């Protein structure tokens, strides 16, 4: 945290690309904190600021489509309606991983 800038938080993401031959490994990103931002809003910011290739799904932003289901600090939750309140760790939800946080869903 700098004297003038906004507070930064650490977002740890378990990334992997089984078909592309990349084993799962943790990557850490720093993003500015802002109250009331969701996990998907935070992932969008990581795409914009650090790595546009970080893969996750989101559609409705209202907790209906369940595309964004993932493990957030170990709990299986919908990322679009889960608020980021500080440092957070993200892993793919239960299922076969396609890439990063994108999983096969029925």
């Amino acid at each position, binding site marked *: 945290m700098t004297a003038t800038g906004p507070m930064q938080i650490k977002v740890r993401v378990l990334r992997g690309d089984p078909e592309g031959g990349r084993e799962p490994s943790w990557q850490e990103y720093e993003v500015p904190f802002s*109250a*009331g*931002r969701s996990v998907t809003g935070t992932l969008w910011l990581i795409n914009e600021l650090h790595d*546009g290739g970080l893969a996750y799904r989101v559609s409705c932003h209202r907790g*209906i489509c369940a595309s964004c289901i993932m493990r957030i600090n170990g709990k299986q939750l919908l990322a679009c*309606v889960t608020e980021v309140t500080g440092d957070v760790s993200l892993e793919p939800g239960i299922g076969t991983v396609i890439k990063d946080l994108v999983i096969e869903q029925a």
Partner: protein
Amino acid sequence: MLRTEVLVIGSEGAGARAAIAAADAGAEVTVVTKGRMTRSGATLTGAADLDVDSATLYRLLGRGDPDDSQDAFFRDMVVEGKYLNDQPLVEAHVGDVPSRIEELLGWGLKIYDLRQNPGHSYPRNLYTSGHDLVMLLKREIKRRPIKVVEDTLVSDLLIADGRVAGAMALDLRSGESDVIEAASVVLASGGGHNIYAYTTGPEDLTGDGQAMALRAGVPLINMEMTQFLPTTIINPPMARGNLFPFLLGPQNGLKYWLLNKYGERFMERWDPARMEFSTRDLTSIGIMNEILEGRGGPDGGVYYSLAHLPSNLIEDFARWGGKPFIKADWSAHGHSFRDVVDRLKAGEAIEVAPAAHFFMGGVQIDEHMATALPGLFAAGEVTGGVHGANRLSGNAFAQIVTQGTRAGAASAAFARREGRPPAPPEASVAAARERLEAPLARDNGVTAYELRHELQDIAAEKVGVLRTGEKLREAVARLEELRRSEMPRLYSRAKDRRYNREWVECLQAESMLSTLQTIARSALLREESRGAHYRRDYPQTDNDRWLCNTVVRQRDDELDVTTGPVRTTRIKVGA
């Protein structure tokens, strides 16, 4: 390469219904979606009603009003659409919807309520849920030999011998592009909501279909007609654009007040009779006028208040109102609005602002859902004409099932009659592939995020609810500049081929830019106010000059904006 008889682009409401109809007509059908079925698109998010004339409801359900008729429904649509509706499309809509409802009820659609919403002369609004509807359509798809291809973005239509011959598509999982050959195509890709940062729409809706149609030379009509939902959440950001306040107030009748920073109920200046229960267009205009003239709140909205109501009355609403969307614990869909309601009950106001909700304009079609390009049909929100300048509550769900069915049947008949087209010319395949690959191939330039921010700023400031010639001219000039100088520099910093979100954002930003250009150009051309289109410099409706469509075409990489006649087969203004 994939080959199919009928290709449907878009897997939800209109697309799903089109696929079912095409399969029932005996065609081999492939549905392609950039998301996944029942997990993308706007239909799913509908906390909504489905319209049919009340006499049909009386016949089918023993509820409703037998005095209603298709003629009365037709008249309400045209009057509320400010006479800009394509009347043959309206006729198809009111004529077909009884069979479609009967069919949906037969398939097991659950009805939660029957109401009479603003603009309707009779109780026509069957309350169902978008989630129920898409699940039902998916089940019907699975009962038929329909191929569904998910995670696949269609980037361009391909043309051979003057007819549609298929599409270029990107498989997001593998990152490989490929041609899909088809004898006919149904475009059912929805609106372009994300052009506006404040939207009720899902992330996928970026005007892809509108942009593809433009590049294929197909005209779009009345693109200036964007419907805004007046009272959506500003904060917290994760619920931005959520229509929860709309569900309480306008939709379910809780007597809310809208206040400016002086505490004035400003809707008195716009609609003294109906006040906050005015139509969506007028309420949005009233709100934006306060914001623009500096009478809004610190978060950029106006105040939404229930302070005049007893707190236990508010609490009791959750038990009876807003079903099935608002639960007794004040959750709506996946969001909890307990905190918001506690603030309202304590006498605080929350800030709300209008959010882009529905595209009334779009691809021009006839009553068989045929576009100007032979073999290309379109259905649902990607099309223009049926709603005119204002859509009535419940008519989006009615539109997707009626138009989807017609488009599916017509595309199957076309494919049967005309047979397979020649393969798309190699040069056009190469050009489409080059356009698709370009952002990945470039090593520097402008990012999708930078372009998207600027587009959303232009949309909000210059092409939003309140418009002026001056601001629209600025928007048109800047957008043309962006198209000429920035779009060719659009690049993805991430270079993975597999599931590369940034690459997709580049393609979507291009679609958003093209679609926003058509909105700005059409809005500048229409020098009057009508329905959702409000010009501060031309606040009156001008039926002498402007009872016509705006029509946008792309010719030789130039946008051509003109006017065209509105087909008025049954009702004329004043008649």
